[in-house]
């Protein structure tokens, strides 16, 4: 499997740092389970750091959308941090830049969640 994740808490926001690829198969499954795990622990504010993601395929993009939807359904928010040019291009092509809140600065991203949620 070519994806890894590390999780840290900054204020009330869970920052998940992903590295590797988000592609069909094990990699997408890993992302899905990571998000599901967070939701089952009651996490509402998730910031995905994609700075070390080299490659996302269409299945991976779909997984990001599904993650966004799952978190929203639980009354939470999922935002994105540190997109590489390649990943940003993909979200542009798929018009998902209009859906995701995208940040380049962790502190600003964390602040944007507001301080109401755990």
């Amino acid at each position: 499997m070519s994806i890894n994740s590390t999780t840290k808490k900054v204020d009330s926001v869970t920052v998940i740092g992903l590295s590797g690829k988000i592609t069909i198969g094990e990699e997408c499954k890993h992302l899905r389970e990571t998000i599901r795990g967070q939701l089952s622990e009651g996490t509402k504010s998730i910031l995905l750091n994609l700075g070390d993601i080299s490659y996302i395929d269409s299945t991976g993009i779909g997984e990001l959308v599904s993650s966004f939807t799952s978190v929203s359904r639980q009354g939470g928010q999922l935002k994105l941090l540190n997109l590489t040019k390649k990943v940003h291009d993909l979200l542009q092509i798929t018009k998902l830049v209009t859906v995701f809140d995208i940040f380049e600065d962790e502190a600003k991203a964390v602040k944007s969640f507001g301080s109401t949620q755990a």
Partner: protein
Amino acid sequence: MAKETIRVEITLESNLKHVELIEVIAQTVAKQCGFGEDGLHEILMAVHECAINAICHGNKEDLQKQVGLSLSVHPDRLEIRVRDQGKSFNPNDVPDPLDKENLMKPAGRGILLIQAFMDEFRVGRCENWGNEVIMTKRLPSPSQPEKGGVGREHQ
């Protein structure tokens, strides 16, 4: 005898574990064509999406069915054909993933990406096979190495 300088034909059983082999060979040929990092990545993604469609949608992951890849280097372009043994499909019938009602769907963006990354994309039927997706990408001119991007500026 083929007229192209380089022609590679691959036939594989419909197993997702073979997609990487297809990708590596496509990258090797594309490198030989002089594509830079961005072009290589665009070709990688187009081949990846197309191979997965052939295996999953075309052949329904039936290991008895085969998937075919053909790469031919022409003086001006790299042509990639991906064949499956599945029922006919028309890309015009596929829902547009950019439509408002499809934007949040978990799938349906592969063909969009292929079209963004390649200069040409069409689907036909191939004798003794099923669908044949034909994609081409113009070779980078040796004088001004391509900078990459989304590939649309080539048109």
